[in-house]
């Protein structure tokens, strides 16, 4: 393992130390960014390095590395140019920008120019629709691009220049960016301060400012009501509502119920349900409290990986995925079906809190 220096190992130890001592696998994504920062892509050596420091096998690391778009599987250029071609940017002209760049550079999606400078890709929504069409270079934004502007940027990059992004920090190379993605600070003087908000970001604020609009009634000293006070208020309200009959004496004696404790609402899973068992198999020591202190488990040299861990993990995986022997599609039991339908009705996108959450109490019914 000659590719990775002692400095990289030191960084790997720092990354692993961010997560609970017995949960080092959480470090896998940042570690993959780290190896990418050395080689410009996740190479077989990079996979091996991650496997070694985490005590996983290469197949486990490879399975993760190939799942995520930002881990590149072949060498990349110094600059990754990503053009958003999702619907909004697309109809606003993003597709022409992409097509123009592809033709000009003579490369297609996920391909690198012969001089090793630029890798081109079309990207999905980059979360800057109010600046569409957008393109990023090493993930910093060039807003409202048109084909000519985009050509200007790539030409400058090929000539050795570093055009300033519209928003975000001054450019660095893709490898340097990967160090930041691994969770390390951008050490370049002033880079964090680069990039003020653009006008679209401030649009509503400017209007409010112009017309002197603010939200009235804000008093930062508003007290936080204590439970006792809340109980009293709730009891009083209840007494008022039930003025006709005497308020049950049990109410004030059970303050938890009066404040609407959520306990009865929690659909706590039955300890014996298959889902729980699955989760417990997946996380065999879930019942044990995690030692809540950061720690490192990275071998300091080329100590052999712990095959035992890998075997255990694989066994857990097998146990968690029993073959469907009943001839029914997985999850086809009536309960799950109904739940899913309810979720479907409740709707909600995949982003953020999932739809199943909404069905937890059926608030959206």
């Amino acid at each position: 393992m000659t590719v990775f220096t002692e400095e990289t190992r030191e960084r790997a130890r720092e990354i692993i130390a961010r997560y609970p001592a017995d949960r080092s696998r959480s470090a896998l994504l940042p570690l993959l960014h780290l190896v990418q920062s050395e080689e410009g892509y996740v190479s077989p050596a990079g996979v091996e390095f991650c496997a070694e420091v985490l005590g996983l096998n290469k197949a486990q690391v490879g399975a993760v590395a190939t799942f995520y778009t930002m881990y590149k599987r072949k060498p990349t250029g110094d600059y990754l140019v990503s053009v958003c071609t999702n619907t909004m940017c697309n109809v606003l002209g993003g597709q022409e920008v992409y097509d123009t760049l592809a033709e000009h550079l003579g490369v297609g999606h996920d391909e690198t120019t012969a001089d090793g400078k630029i890798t081109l890709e079309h990207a999905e929504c980059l979360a800057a629709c109010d600046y569409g069409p957008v393109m990023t270079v090493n993930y910093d934004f060039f807003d409202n691009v048109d084909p000519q502007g985009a050509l200007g940027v790539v030409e400058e990059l090929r000539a050795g220049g570093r055009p300033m992004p519209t928003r975000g920090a001054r450019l660095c190379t893709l490898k340097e960016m990967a160090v930041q993605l691994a969770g390390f600070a951008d050490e370049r003087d002033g880079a964090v301060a680069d990039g003020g908000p653009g006008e679209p970001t401030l649009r509503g604020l400017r209007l409010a400012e112009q017309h002197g609009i603010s939200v009235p009634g804000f008093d930062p000293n508003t007290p936080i009501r204590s439970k006792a006070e809340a109980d009293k208020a709730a009891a009083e309200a209840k007494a008022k509502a039930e003025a006709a009959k005497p308020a049950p004496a049990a109410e004030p004696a059970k303050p938890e119920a009066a404040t609407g404790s959520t306990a009865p609402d929690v659909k706590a899973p039955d300890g014996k349900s298959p889902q729980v068992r699955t989760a417990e198999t997946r996380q065999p020591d879930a019942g044990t409290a995690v030692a809540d202190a950061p720690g490192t488990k990275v071998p300091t040299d080329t100590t052999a990986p712990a095959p035992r861990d890998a075997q255990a993990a694989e066994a857990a995986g097998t146990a968690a995925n029993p073959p469907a022997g009943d001839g029914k599609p997985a999850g086809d039991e009536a309960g799950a079906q109904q739940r899913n339908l309810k979720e479907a009705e409740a709707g909600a996108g995949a982003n953020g809190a999932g739809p199943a959450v909404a069905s937890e109490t059926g608030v959206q019914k």
Partner: protein
Amino acid sequence: MTAPRPETLAKLTPVLTKRWLSPDAWRIGTYEKLDGYAALRKALKAHPDDLIQLIKDSGLRGRGGAGFPTGLKWGFIPQGDGKPHYLVVNADEGEPGTCKDLPLMTHDPHSLVEGVIIASYAIRANRAYIYIRGEAVHAARRLRNAVREAYAKGYLGRNIQGTGFDLDLVVHSGAGAYICGEETALLDSLEGFRGQPRLRPPFPATHGLYASPTVVNNVGTIASVPYIVLGGADWWKTMGTEKSSGPMIYSLSGRIANPGQFECSMGITLRELIELAGGMQPGHNLRFWTPGGSSTPLLTAEHLDVPLDFEGVAAAGSILGTTATQIFSDQDCPVYATYRWLEFYHHESCGKCTPCREGNYWMVRVYRRILAGQGTHEDLDTLLDTCDNILGRSFCGLGDGATSSVTSSLKYFKQDYLDYIEGRTAPKLSEKQLVGAH
């Protein structure tokens, strides 16, 4: 393009976005001068249960799309169970059209950090993670800087502000997978696995990160917390509607004169939002729009006066989602727009559930055929049938979201499909682009 009317302007509620006007608000010194960390000091003097009750009283609902009551979610965390608790912030913003969390984290990162500390204190978590979308590099720079500053000032770490409360906060960058915005996929990803959703129950409240009780909240949700702690639940409820309280950041993009972020009282209508955005672009008439990202069914010009809160949009047959209103005009083709979104869902499907993985793959091909002028009438039935077989038949909402634009565009714009099929609209895709689309 006339100026917005005073009654429309009055719906602007700059709360979460307000500090964006101060160019240095991302630095802790400036943040502290602008009420920063005052909420934390106040919260640390209160009992954690009282904070949970405060959030319940405020009626705050999740800003990530589902609108689940935040206080209720916090209350689900079993207390005194001897297990570690976790707070995980979902900062994997990627729903097409959505662009409100990135500016918040870039220009006011400390409000998120402060919210994280208060929320962690309330649910008794000693570790918190912000899972930020990998591509959001500048927001991550500012956020990591904010976390470092907060440690240096004693807002994070051991014995915070002398209260004995410990909290470690890690900013964890993703690596390009839309599915990781789904909370259980996010947790798997954070554990170092492929980001694939888990079957629920059990819910993250009992079996979340590392199979421990976990609250997963969106950026906007957590960033709202300091304001509620300072201003109180009653003040918060002066904004919004009865069941959808507070301000909301509406992200307007597309065929309007001035796209951008507009933080308004919940329940504002699209008509009013377009007014704030300076009207439609010259020569464009509203034809279709998404109320909250591409996973929410399309609405049309008929729906200009639908109140954009959780209940109002649901009553109109769609979902409030992330309040990402993407606005399309009579010069945009709903069939093409839907096709492009499907390409997205096809690419982003994690592959775990067959209906979503295969259904989206095949629907993309049907759309290519239609857009190349080679579609048949049966193709429309095939699309609806495929949607029937995806909706509600996958672990998470990605598959459901994929069907939204298909079924809604077929509902409102069937004629546009027929025009391609019957040769009245010129094909948009060429034979060359059709390779493999059979």
